[in-house]
């Protein structure tokens, strides 16, 4: 009889369901219960760097936009530092790097304002191109989906990013590229998430 390993097992994931908003973003869903809604302000008022907006849709396998999803955002500041004890240093007062956004109940559109993150350290050596980490939950999604937003104007950094280069299918890498437009007050990056079908977004097992 071999020895027994005493590790516990991770609690299993279950779908966030159709009413995730009342738990995680009640105010955004028109339900006033808490004094403080979490995740409304990602960068704070003192963050250095370029102010940007990111927006898009989430599209299912039939081409229909999701109107009941929630996205969480996790990003570094403009210096590439995360607001965490292992994040690589200090960040500006009020910079959290974390936020929540829900898809609009009528249109399905989502969007958030933040500052553009800087390059972050890669494993072992080198740098990761600027990116925003996303975690997506909704009815019909059994376990939260992890993906990353990269920026299409960071051509050089993207070309040597170890995660983008890890994706064997080069023709799928563009699904992680947010497209910049500057027709507005602040630059808008458009990022649509396709759960399946043509141009299915790359999702990661992190």
């Amino acid at each position, binding site marked *: 009889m071999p020895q027994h390993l*005493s*590790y*516990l*097992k*991770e*609690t*299993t*994931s*279950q*779908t*966030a*369901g159709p*009413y*995730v*908003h*009342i*738990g*995680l973003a*009640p105010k955004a*869903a*028109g*339900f006033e*219960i808490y*004094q403080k809604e*979490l995740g409304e302000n990602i960068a704070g008022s003192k963050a250095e760097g370029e102010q940007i907006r990111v927006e898009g849709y989430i599209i*299912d*396998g*039939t081409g229909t936009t*999701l109107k009941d999803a929630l996205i*969480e955002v*996790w990003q*570094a500041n403009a210096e590439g530092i*995360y607001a*965490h004890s*292992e*994040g690589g240093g200090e960040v500006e007062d009020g910079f*959290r*790097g*974390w936020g929540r956004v829900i898809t609009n*109940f009528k249109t399905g559109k989502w969007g958030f304002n933040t500052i553009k993150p800087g390059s*972050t*350290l890669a*494993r*072992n050596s080198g740098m990761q191109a600027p990116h925003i*980490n996303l975690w997506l939950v909704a009815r*019909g*999604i*059994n376990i*939260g989906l992890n993906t*990353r937003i990269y920026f299409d104007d960071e051509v050089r950094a993207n070309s040597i990013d170890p*995660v983008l280069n890890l994706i064997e299918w080069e023709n799928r890498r563009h699904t992680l590229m947010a497209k910049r437009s500057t027709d507005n007050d602040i630059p808008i990056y458009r990022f649509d998430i396709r*759960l*399946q*079908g043509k141009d*299915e977004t*790359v*999702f*990661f*097992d*992190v």
Partner: protein
Amino acid sequence: MKQDAEYYQRDPNIHPVACTPSYKSSITRSPRFSLISLENSISEITGPVFSHSDIDPGDNDLLTNFAQSNESPIGQRIILHGHVLDENSRTIPNTLIEIWQANACGRYRHKNDTYLAPIDPNFGGCGRALTDGDGYFYFRTVMPGAYPWQNYVNSWRPAHIHVSVFGASFVQRLITQCYFEGDPLIPICPIVQTIPNPNAIEQLTARLDLNATIPFDAIAYKFDIILRGRRSTLFENRF
């Protein structure tokens, strides 16, 4: 001295796969391509940090956090409590737990829920708490009712409370559902049955905890939450 390194990978034998046809909503919302396996970098081992300034002390009491003064929601009063641990049995302090649920009739306070059972004017249905220094948390609430939903024509969810937990890094992020011991709807629920492993279902089933019950007040249920553990190494590690 040992140093913290990568998180243990998720065990695919305990989590649902993306496409589980008996849970119909998953069919069009599940990626068809395999996930790209990513070794932890600084982007994965970090995650948001919360403190007591983010929440209010009464947020974990669903019996009072939406009730009018001197009133309380209808239903069986319960305490849901437990510890948040990692797979190495280390407690996780100061981590944010958020819950949401239907009222005692099985109705959610959500504009998209049209079930004919009534809204309870004294019940909001959500709460949140930080674990204490020992990783312990508790909520007071009412036992949620079974909830009818569109899957098969006649589908009822077992009584359940949705639970969201952060842990110390973005790779520990987890949303799950807490079920209650003895509920006959558990084994026939298409969402529960997305889970491939009976032990994993048991781990989602809160157990009656008579020792923690408050006489003539509230029945307690114990629900421990386990998040991914972390490797340690004797060698310098760079993410």
